[in-house]
């Protein structure tokens, strides 16, 4: 792999940019790999990358039925934060956030991590209490957050209306080192690094069956023929139930649609990420100037990856009181992704009833921010059979009643 650098740009500028190579190879699948990861989204690619980087396992295939990073990795609102209430969540999300800090250098790929700060607005008395509690918990967990006053919120976000009649801004939970990153670049950067380690990324290759013999995974059947493996990792978000069924077990999750949209590009007006969980909306401004806006999920099972018009209205309406200028913005694009939601709104990174088969799913509405931490932990689990970061996220936790109850802790919009 040729490294990207200022010298590479200068060299290519002198020869009409004819020397750039493809960022990753697209090989035909081999018959056998040590590890097969299903799903070339952020989490799957990160898992493969850390398997190679931390454990030296490079005979790895990453299989993707669509195109690389075309699922939820390419459909989110790119927010990165780690201000969670429960210890296990704070640990894995903070691990992820800290890996984002150096990801561009690690991968030699600019993922445009922008630690611009994230505010979660408190707009009811309950939220004040909730966020103060989270701020205290974060202090114990080593996550840097603080409770800030409405005046400080106004300083950080001049376009905000503090004195809305229904939902006044009463303060906020502020994470200074939260922010955003370029979502596609995260997938592309990991893909390039994986390919460079000799891993095979196989796109447009759908898994049609999981082969299990004597309770062990021995491989997968795909549209490009059978592929054998010693270990299998399922990292397929909304499609995890479908894949698990092929392997013969069930997962405690449901797939629903989550939608987001961007406005027309406007001049810079807000340089932090703001989440308003009471009214169900969150917003940041992209480098292109578009306001990136996300809302809540639908309440019914759905695999369509489509949005719906009433959600645009609902989400924008929610933001208009707090951000009056939004009422004059035209919305440009809107899209939907299929998120995998568990009973306690926390992910599953776990061994499964099938030996040598591991599952990483259930990130629900908040997977992008977790990509590096999730990959790091999943790789450790797959390579060694044990990871301190994933212990609490076992799929058996429901049976034992050991929930990681973030549906309450994080409000609604993860």
């Amino acid at each position, binding site marked *: 792999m040729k490294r990207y650098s200022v010298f590479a740009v200068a060299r290519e500028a002198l020869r009409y940019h004819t020397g750039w190579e493809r960022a990753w190879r697209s090989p035909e699948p081999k018959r056998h790999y040590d590890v097969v990861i299903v799903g070339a989204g952020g989490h799957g690619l990160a898992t493969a990358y850390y398997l190679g980087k931390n454990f030296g396992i490079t005979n790895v295939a990453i299989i993707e039925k669509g195109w690389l990073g075309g699922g939820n990795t390419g459909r989110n609102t790119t927010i990165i934060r780690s201000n969670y209430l429960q210890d296990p969540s704070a640990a894995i999300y903070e691990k992820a956030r800290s890996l984002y800090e150096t990801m561009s250098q690690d991968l030699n790929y600019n993922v445009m991590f922008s630690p611009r700060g994230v505010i979660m607005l408190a707009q009811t008395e309950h939220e004040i209490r909730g966020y103060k509690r989270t701020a205290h918990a974060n202090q114990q967990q080593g996550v840097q957050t603080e409770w800030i006053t409405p005046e400080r919120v106004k300083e950080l976000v001049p376009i905000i209306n503090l004195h809305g009649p229904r939902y006044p801004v009463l303060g906020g939970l502020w994470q200074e080192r939260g922010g955003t990153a370029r979502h596609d670049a995260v997938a592309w950067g990991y893909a390039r690094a994986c390919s460079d380690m000799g891993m095979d990324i196989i796109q447009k290759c759908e898994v049609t069956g999981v082969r299990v013999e004597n309770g062990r995974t021995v491989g997968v059947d795909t549209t490009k023929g059978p592929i054998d493996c010693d270990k299998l990792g399922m990292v397929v978000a909304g499609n995890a139930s479908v894949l698990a069924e092929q392997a013969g077990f069930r997962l*405690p999750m*449901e797939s629903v649609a989550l939608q987001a949209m961007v406005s027309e590009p406007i001049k810079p007006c807000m340089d932090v990420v703001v989440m308003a969980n009471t009214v169900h909306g969150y917003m940041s401004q992209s480098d292109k100037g578009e306001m990136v806006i996300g809302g809540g999920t639908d309440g*019914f*099972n759905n*695999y369509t990856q489509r949005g*719906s018009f*009433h959600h645009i209205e609902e989400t924008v309406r929610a933001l208009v009181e707090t951000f009056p200028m939004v009422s004059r913005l035209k919305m440009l694009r809107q899209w939907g992704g299929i998120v995998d939601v568990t*009973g306690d709104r926390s992910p599953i990174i776990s061994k499964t009833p099938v030996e040598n088969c591991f599952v990483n799913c259930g990130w629900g509405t908040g997977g992008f921010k977790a990509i590096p931490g999730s990959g790091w932990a999943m790789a450790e689990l797959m390579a060694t059979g044990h990871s301190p970061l994933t212990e609490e996220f076992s799929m058996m936790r429901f*049976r034992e009643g050991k929930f990681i109850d973030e549906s309450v802790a994080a409000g609604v919009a993860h």
Partner: protein
Amino acid sequence: MLILECPYCGVKAEETELAAGGEAHLKRYGPGSSDDEFHDYLFMRENPKGVHFERWRHANGCGKWFHAARCTMTLEVFGTYPAQTTEPPQEICDKITAKRPGWSWREFSDGRKSSAA
């Protein structure tokens, strides 16, 4: 946008008029049941890519609960039927079979595979 016909008031209601109520025809397990049964009753839900049966409420209408048979992959609605039943009526199953031969959902299916399920 999803449109379901309320089997009680006959109104063709769209999504914003309705509240989704999750999987239909759940069997309830209580004291005396095994851990597995109770775990599955509480946390395991069908999550099919295709034919699905659900509970809905005509929340901003007549307020009544009803059932719907729907495809989660295309949002196609096969039919709605009243809540006072523990299994999908034959008429609905026939409609699904016409459009999705070979379908199955939990212990229900198009009839040809029912012994396997």
